[in-house]
């Protein structure tokens, strides 16, 4: 049971200091993005109600659960669900 970070990660550092298991490492030693050490990750079980990295990550789809599914789905962080995107764009462009 462990989360992972994919290459959508923008190396913003927000997750790193929050991890209760110190499982996250920065983009050091040539790594293109932040990574989760699967041997350390507990998915915050017993520490927090919400897994901390997924709760602060600003990029939809960058953090995956053990099954490889995105924890932050499209539209969940912009507040605009994909089916409303066009409507929202029209509204914003009319400002």
């Amino acid at each position, binding site marked *: 049971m462990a989360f992972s970070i994919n290459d959508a990660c*923008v190396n*913003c*550092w*927000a997750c790193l*200091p929050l991890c209760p298991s110190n499982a996250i490492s920065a983009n050091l030693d040539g790594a293109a993005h932040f990574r989760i050490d699967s041997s350390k990750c507990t998915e915050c079980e017993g520490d927090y109600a919400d897994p901390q990295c997924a709760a602060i990550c600003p990029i939809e789809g960058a953090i995956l659960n053990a099954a490889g599914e995105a924890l932050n789905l499209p539209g969940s962080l*912009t507040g605009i669900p994909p089916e409303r995107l066009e409507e929202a764009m029209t509204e914003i*462009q*009319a400002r």
Partner: protein
Amino acid sequence: MELKVLGQAKPGSSASANEGGCSKSACGSTSDQMMHLPEHIRDKVRNHPCYSEDAHHYYARMHVAVAPACNIQCHYCNRKYDCANESRPGVVSELLTPDQAVKKVIAVAAKIPQMTVLGIAGPGDPLANPERTFETFRQLTEKAPDIKLCVSTNGLSLPQQIDELCKHNIDHVTITINCVDPEIGARIYPWVFWENRRVRGAKGAKILIDQQQKGLEMLIERGILVKVNSVMIPGVNDKHLVEVSKIVKSKGAFLHNVMPLIAEAEHGTFYGVMGQRSPTAGELTELQDACAGDMNMMRHCRQCRADAVGMLGEDRGAEFTLDKVEAMDIDYAAAMTKRAEIHAQIEAHRAEKKREADAEAAANLTANPTANLLGDLPGDLRPVLMAVATRGHGIVNEHFGHAKEFLVYEASPSGVRFIGCRRAAQYCSGDDTCGEGESKLDTIIRSLEGCEAVICSKIGYAPWERLEAAGIAPNGEYAMEPIEEAVAGVYREMFVAGHLSKAGGELRA
């Protein structure tokens, strides 16, 4: 140079026409925008290049990028880059550890003895990285106690961090406050990270607003100066910022800096991608004027980057990369002594300038009691914006082609007043072409939108023609003259030529 900003009266009102004080650029005693501040505040900001238009010609500041993480999302920010409010969007700063940052600051302060201020503004939020931010401050308070420390924050963690923050050599804090209404906030901030959870929409915005206001009150209670930054977003918070300005002023913020939203699709921000527009220069000025009745407005902000080094509007960061800093051998004590000497020389020079200016102002006051260079013109002439190329000291002394920025002034029968600063080649690398085949000159002309004249010490034939074609009259007749007199002179020429009647109206002489 000092810039005249009407602090308490709306433009065109009878109060502004008769407002006392000297309108001369060279007058340091009455025309600096800081003049509206109580003495104890002025003492704290007079050597701060970001707060005093005069000081920025003498003193340098730097930012160090030690704070990468952020605890909120702003729709004008792409977290791949630095905080878009506290630096130019689309920029990635070199992230430093606290030890590296301290080395860099000590090196810069030794090589650029005009340095007075060190700020931490990102690339994320300084208070979302308390250990890195405070370790940097702690070491600097010890090693360079003469350097003032500054922090810029979104305010979410401010109440929790305030006691630690106040332990350091901090005189001022900047809080970015874009709204006081959670419904408006929900259209700017999609979520905040609060008490280990992501809180979305108006509920999240309300938490942020409450923390910002509480943080503002706590800072004022502790005697720390607070500047408020706001990003003007058309159709979202543009009208609302007038109320924000009133509230933060009533709570004791000393300065309000309303900045235009920058939203380009290529920066990858939500607003950029969705097509949210930026305000026009005219809309920005109108809002700044509407807020100015309640607040000292800041109009010379250059929106510099999170790792900027040097005088305002310049960046000498390339001289101080980590490997170069590592190779420097710095004598702390000698550097601090040198800084004290240089600062004393600067202050002696400024005091001398002020004495000259006061004498000149006194002489002018006898000749013209209202100190309004245009007070004799009919009151119903339309106001005109003009751009001035200057290297400072209140005079027209820069070639058009060398200008990195233009100062915009408004002339009207009420007088001449400073409106703001326009970057000549904002986001342009300085190449011949910029963006989609747009030439540098096109970019400059676009940045001068709304201006009817550009006053400079000299201008070439090619740009002259292009400016005229764009409806902007170039003028090189006022080289080395005081800016206000030049602007007033051009306005007077426009009046004589019959260019100043209201649209469609007749001149009433």
